[in-house]
């Protein structure tokens, strides 16, 4: 295996592990559901993508096999994980979970005042 690819693969996997760790710290430390979800869905997605990309490159350089399942997994996680975050956040908002006290903006609040008009 070429040395430069070894370095790239190690860097990708370490970056992925580090981003997942950052996501875990974000889930522990941030104050409310929305900020936690923000940390978990974005940082964990990128972390998992980096680990998967490193795995794909490792098996491609080491054994010469193109593992299409890993590519499919990368695409699948990249498509679905932000949507999962969006749905969790929206379910939390619709069931009335409060924002953090220091939040300054809530764009959906004005629309929630007259819900009967939106019922068609």
């Amino acid at each position, binding site marked *: 295996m070429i040395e430069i690819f070894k370095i790239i693969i190690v860097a990708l996997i370490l970056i992925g592990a580090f981003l997942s760790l950052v996501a875990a710290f974000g889930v522990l430390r941030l104050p409310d559901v929305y900020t936690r979800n923000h940390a978990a869905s974005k940082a964990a997605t990128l972390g998992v993508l980096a680990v998967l990309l490193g795995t794909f490159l490792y098996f491609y350089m080491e054994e010469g096999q193109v593992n299409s*399942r890993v590519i499919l997994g990368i695409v699948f996680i990249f*498509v*679905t994980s932000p*949507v999962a975050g969006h*749905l969790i956040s929206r379910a939390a908002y*619709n069931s009335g979970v409060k924002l953090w006290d220091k939040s300054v903006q809530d764009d959906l609040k004005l629309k929630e005042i007259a*819900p009967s008009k*939106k019922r*068609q």
Partner: protein
Amino acid sequence: MKPNDVILHSVTKVAVFIILTFSIYLFFGGHHNPGGGFIGGLSVASGLVLLYLTFDIETVRRNIPVDFKKVAAFGVLIAIFTGASSLLFDKPFLNQAYGYFNLPIFGKTELATAVIFDVGVALAVIGTAVTIILSISEDG
């Protein structure tokens, strides 16, 4: 308030294709790689359940007009008949045969009767899983 599910709907349309493709891969890879009828059938069932979650049950039932109880029964029938078909050739029950054939596109391919048994297993698993989930989810 009627929810606006545009994001969920458009992503489901992409994701279900990926899930179904991957489950077909798992099904056919089962002879030499991890996979097979059970896990292939379960992932097809999970794709269908994702459809049922995103769109409502009536819409999916209109577009996939299949009675999943019959699918499960049909799968068990296929499995039993492939097992019994070996009796016609003076072999014991559930004996299997395979051979190498030259197919037009794939070249030299190993075809085994175990695949037909696996189709039965997969259909039984799809039918059972979807039936369980649908009968839990319906009201009344």
